[in-house]
């Protein structure tokens, strides 16, 4: 194991503390937003009786999905024996925990009664609710990944890394299934009621998680003057491209299936053709920016080799992913429920009309606060513990790769 040396990052630079301070400010803004929402009520947000889950859920679900995806790099190393990825495994685990904590914080602070998280939410469970099961899936995930990290970072625990890695991999599949099922189990809403949402969320998690992982990895190495070689970069890039393509496939199957059901043609026509902002977000945001452009960049003979372009592709996947969540969560609610098929409906409660949604600054800052919490945890983590290999230059990776065979 002499080939890979893990080190804390050095703390000399003012830049590091500048980043921590900036993140701290965003976190405080998020907490202030949450405090306002709790004391004054959700009336100050853009959410209402029609759009009941808004921007905070877009951020929260995105981060929770990305959290399980961020663990993939570690899983590929320990579960599937690709030893080249093993040096990246600790960071992968840290990122997974950080993203989950960030996402869950947003989710909990958006509750109508966040004061009851401990007194009620953690003590009263209705196990027919996927939400209640998720409480255990999320806490279990953090515990298992923490143990997994321990087996990787404590030499005496190394023999158990594979077992912990397998457990974490199975658990993350369950977790994302649970997250996708939050929507998949909503039988009454035409854009949700689908078993396909669970595997779609898993593939989405692969793509988002890896994109975030690559960006954090590049940032951490660039800012601390360490090297990442081409071998590992090209591998990660190809993997990301495969995940994006798989995501496109699942999205296509989902919509084609819906279109085939006559009952759902109206809602599909709305989303894909004349849904205004939702249609634009779907085609331009989710499909073009989030999938097609990154694929073009990653497969392009010249751009695909440029670090800056690879980083841009990752950024596009993240932006596209947030938009995909927006279309999934907001779009799914914006289309009215059908109570009487075949009838034109209207009422004072906005039956039969598409519901607009104008998110407020409070929701935006709560969501960004969650992102900042995740990044803060990563920034502190890599400074105080040895998450990052000292070098990922080609000779280090190759030597390690060879050793694994």
């Amino acid at each position, binding site marked *: 194991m002499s080939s890979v040396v893990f080190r804390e990052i050095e703390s000399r630079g003012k830049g590091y503390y500048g980043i921590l301070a900036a993140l701290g400010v965003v976190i405080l803004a998020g907490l202030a937003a949450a405090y306002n929402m709790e*004391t*004054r*009520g959700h009336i100050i947000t853009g959410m209402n009786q029609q759009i009941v889950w808004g921007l905070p859920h877009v951020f929260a679900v995105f981060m929770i999905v990305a959290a399980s995806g961020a663990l993939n790099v570690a899983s590929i190393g320990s579960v599937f024996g690709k030893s080249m990825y093993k040096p990246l495994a600790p960071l992968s685990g840290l990122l997974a925990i950080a993203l989950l904590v960030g996402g869950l914080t947003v989710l909990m602070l958006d509750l109508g009664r966040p004061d009851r998280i401990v007194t009620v939410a953690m003590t009263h469970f209705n196990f027919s609710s996927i939400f209640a099961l998720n409480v255990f899936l999320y806490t279990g995930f953090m515990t298992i990944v923490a143990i997994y990290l321990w087996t990787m970072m404590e030499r005496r625990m190394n023999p158990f890394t594979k077992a912990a890695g397998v457990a974490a991999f199975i658990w993350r599949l369950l977790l994302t299934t649970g997250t996708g099922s939050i929507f998949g189990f909503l039988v009454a809403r035409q854009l949700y009621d689908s078993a396909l949402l669970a595997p779609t969320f898993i593939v989405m998690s692969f793509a988002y998680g890896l994109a975030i992982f690559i960006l954090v990895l590049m940032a951490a190495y660039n800012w601390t003057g360490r090297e990442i070689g081409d071998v590992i970069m090209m591998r990660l890039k190809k993997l990301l491209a495969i995940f994006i393509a798989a995501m496109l496939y699942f999205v296509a199957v989902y919509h084609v299936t819906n279109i085939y059901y006559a009952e759902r043609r109206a809602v599909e026509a709305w989303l894909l053709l004349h849904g205004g902002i939702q249609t634009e977000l779907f085609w331009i945001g989710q499909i073009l920016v989030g999938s097609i452009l990154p694929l073009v960049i990653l497969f392009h003979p010249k751009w695909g080799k440029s670090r800056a372009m690879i980083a841009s592709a990752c950024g596009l996947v993240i932006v596209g992913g947030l938009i995909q969540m927006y279309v999934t969560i907001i779009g799914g609610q914006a289309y009215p429920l059908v109570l009487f098929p075949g009838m034109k409906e209207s009422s004072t409660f906005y039956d039969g009309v598409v519901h607009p949604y104008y998110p407020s600054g409070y929701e935006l800052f709560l969501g960004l606060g969650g992102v900042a919490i995740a990044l803060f945890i990563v920034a502190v983590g890599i400074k105080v513990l040895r998450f990052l290999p000292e070098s990922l230059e080609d000779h280090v990776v190759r030597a390690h790769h060879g050793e694994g065979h």
Partner: protein
Amino acid sequence: MSVLGRIARCLRPRVLGFVALMAAAGVCGANQGAVYSSGNLGPTILKAPGHCVRPTEWMRHNHMKLLLEERTEWVRQGIRDRKDSLENCVKCHAADAPNGAVFGAKQDFCVSCHNYAAVKITCFECHSAKPKGKVPAFHPLYGPMGPHGEGANAHGLALMMRESASTGRLGLGASK
């Protein structure tokens, strides 16, 4: 260890002060019924007409358990004839209060003790702090007919809701 020791030393006078306060509360408890104030130390407890469903001393320690048990029967089973319901508590204890409520002003029955003990009350975020059918005639929303009379004014209620939405939820700074 030395740090802990220093903290402990700092705390000691405060702990003694707290014990003294608790003792004062005990004295206050012995004087059940009458409007009582022990200077700056104890809470002011408004006297309620009639007899309580349990001895005062018992209620002082256990009213929350009683309400917890009662609320479950009330909400989940619809058993509404318990004498020890929150609705009945409010009926008695708001009877002689200047504002006709158990919560809302500093001297109100629930508030005085809870402020003193620094325990937040969340009951009245949902529950009415006033007894049923006893709305003061000068109430801004309802005329002298009460909430079911001709004076019911949805517009006024809406205005007040919007106002309270911008000023924060009903409550007292001290109990937050």
